């Protein structure tokens, strides 16, 4: 019997123990408030450096629940601002669902402070898979917007960047870990999507290109799309072939891109870029006919070639390398000083673009 009594005693103590749970991580989900996005802007009203904005999700029992709370604080570092903000909410700030980090354009120009991204990586609670983006007109404006179609706070941006919902060729999403990698990897430069607030909707169709220091170049939507052919081989788009009266639009279904560095034993090094597009004609300013497909393809080829080369040259002029030509060069060369050689080569290198546009048909209409 004494065994049972002992066992009962132990059970009783075990039952009592949970009531003493404190300070060992036990915190109910309703005692936490989730930060869904973080914005970093330059400070406006004080001599501090930054204005950090947090978007907090308010879980609601009702059906529509994209209710949120915005809190902001200025500080010289993100950590400092966050510490002050902790006192502003009644619940524990939980960063584990902060899936979006938005920087103001001005923060990235001319040089981004390293702490501004290392802080997120250093902390255990931020996901490595948070998306990073540039916010216009300011990071705070991006966080404040409440789109009509949204069910959970910030969810519409998560859906766009994660390509779970809309898939667009104008969006080049960037994860935090990749962003950091591109800062440190020689020969591969960071790039960030630009989120613009236009009235009540987000417009994400541009991309900002950085070198190892800060923002150097912003591409137009069209250029962004071309760049995306290379970054993600993203096919869901339409390419407008402009040729005066003979303009038409191709609905792209398949993209294949490839490049090769031709730098060995040549006086004039060049990069051979192949781009292969597949699609069908969707819209045209003139009467199209299935018989003339070859002719349209030729038109498309010349046009695409020029477009692609223009974008690549633009990157070269601004000395940014988001596609990783430099890394490719390093990975194919065994010399110790291959990186120095590439740094000399890149500004002068030529691009030879081969475009191969295949138009399958003219859609359901002849």
């Amino acid at each position, binding site marked *: 019997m004494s065994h049972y009594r002992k066992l009962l005693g132990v059970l009783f103590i*075990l039952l009592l*123990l*949970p009531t003493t*749970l404190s300070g*060992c*991580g*036990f*915190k*109910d*989900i*309703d005692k*936490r408030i*989730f930060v*869904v996005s973080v914005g970093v802007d330059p400070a406006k009203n004080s001599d501090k450096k930054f204005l950090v904005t947090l978007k907090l*999700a308010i*879980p*609601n*029992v009702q059906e529509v*629940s994209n209710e949120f709370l915005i809190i902001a604080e200025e500080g010289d570092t993100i950590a400092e601002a966050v510490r002050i903000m902790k006192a502003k909410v009644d619940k524990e700030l*939980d960063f*584990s*669902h902060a*899936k979006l980090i938005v920087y103001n354009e001005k923060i990235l120009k001319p040089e981004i402070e390293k702490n501004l991204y290392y802080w997120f990586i250093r902390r255990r*609670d931020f*996901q490595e898979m948070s998306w990073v983006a540039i916010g216009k007109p300011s990071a705070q404006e991006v966080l404040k917007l409440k789109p009509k179609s949204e069910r*959970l706070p910030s*969810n519409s941006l*998560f859906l766009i960047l994660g390509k779970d919902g809309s898939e667009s060729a104008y969006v080049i999403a960037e994860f935090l870990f990749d962003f950091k990698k591109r800062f440190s990897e020689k020969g591969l430069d960071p790039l960030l999507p630009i989120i613009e607030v236009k009235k009540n909707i987000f417009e994400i169709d541009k991309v900002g290109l950085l070198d190892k220091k800060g923002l150097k170049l912003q591409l137009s939507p069209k250029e962004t799309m071309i760049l995306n052919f290379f970054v993600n081989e993203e096919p869901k788009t339409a390419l407008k072939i402009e040729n005066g009266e003979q303009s038409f639009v191709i609905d792209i279904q398949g993209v294949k891109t490839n490049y090769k560095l031709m730098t060995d034993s040549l006086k004039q090094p060049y990069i051979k870029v192949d781009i292969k597009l597949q699609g069908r004609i969707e819209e045209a300013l003139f009467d199209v006919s299935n018989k003339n497909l070859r002719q349209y393809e030729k038109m498309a080829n010349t046009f695409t070639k020029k477009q692609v080369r223009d974008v690549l040259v633009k990157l070269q002029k601004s000395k940014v390398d988001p596609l990783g030509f430099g890394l490719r060069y390093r990975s194919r060369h065994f010399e110790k000083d291959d990186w120095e050689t590439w740094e000399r080569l890149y500004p002068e290198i030529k691009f030879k673009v081969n475009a191969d546009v295949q138009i399958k048909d003219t859609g359901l209409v002849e």
Partner: protein
Amino acid sequence: MASNQVQSIQDSIKEQFQKSDDVVFKELHTNEKYLEVFYIKTICDEAQMQTYLIKPFYEIISARGFLHYLQSHPKIAQYESKQNTVNEVIQGAAVLFYQENIFLLDTKADKNNSVIDTTVETTILGPQSGFSESLPTNIGLIRNRYPALSLMIESMKVGTISNTSVNLLYDSEKVDLDTVKKVKEFLSSIKIEMFQSGEQLLDFTKKNQRSLFPTLMVTERPDRSAVNLAAGKVIVLVAGSPFAVIMPTVMKDLMASMADIYQTFWIGKFLLLLRYLALVTTITLPGLYVALTSYNPEVFRVQLALSVAGSRHAVPYPSFIEVFLMLIMMELLLEASIRLPKAIGPTATTVGGLILGQAATAAGLVSNIMIIIVSLGAISNFVIPINTFSFAVRISKYFILALSIFFGLVGVIIGLFMLIAYMVSQDSFGKPFLTLKEEN
């Protein structure tokens, strides 16, 4: 045997049986011969007595002829000892005193020998009837299904008062003799007054090893018993119980349903997979809920985390109190519906499950998701085919829950590991309880 000796035996037997209402002492006379019969009429089959004893007594005229009859009838045995005679009489035999001889007539009434439909381990297809409450009938049922010469039947007695006959059945060609030895040792080691049914053995395995999981299986299905005989197991049948006990029993057996062999291959495999899934679900779900809502909400994806947070919005106490509250409610409900008469059972379930659950969420005492978790856990528990095992599983979920309260998600995993390690450490009559592939 001298006549005074017979007289003294007769007197002492009569003395030992107190004057109960159902004790019968009768003298039969004809001109040529004279017979005394002693028996207990409530456990004696008087119709048999009529055919085997009284009719021949009056039909065979010569005294010598009747003696020959008594000596050669297979149902009638010679006197052995006084103790043996007393034991036989208690169990329904009749003692015959004829001339200078004492005989024992086996007239034990074979009551409750009708076969019962399966109610505990039901299957859709396959045989639908279970064992009866009579030992000879049950052995007959097994012999019918397992007509092999190698089938061995050994008899034992268990229980100091009940003196219950227990029969051990095994296929002598397939069984591991070491196992048979262990089973016999186990049965003879049992110290009990009243032994009524094989389920009592469960209790004894636990007291010896303090085990949580059953290391023997109780079944009501003759087909399962036959299949297990073929698998080299020992079956124990207990007089008066419609359940057979199968030893040794390992994890695999506890998760198998007889439905598996009455289905096509893939359906059987699918059902097995489903059962293991249910096992994991029912064990971990409450623990996971506490761990994920109170320690690691970052594990969920953001959309899910927010809806869980929203659902717990109105609940005024920590998650583990909420879980305990609901689990205890569920256990009460289960216990109540077992105890209730069949006609009221469904009502209790409806009142408890639907109305209480609905009201508890509406009142903000528990969250919606909690209700789903508790019911899913309970349903999954019912998927486990062997009742004794499903009870053990019901208890182990509290172990995981306790760990999750203190250690969060890590606790759940450590708890699962510990459970597996515990199962692996168990032995059932010399066979490992849980292994992937058995060693020979």
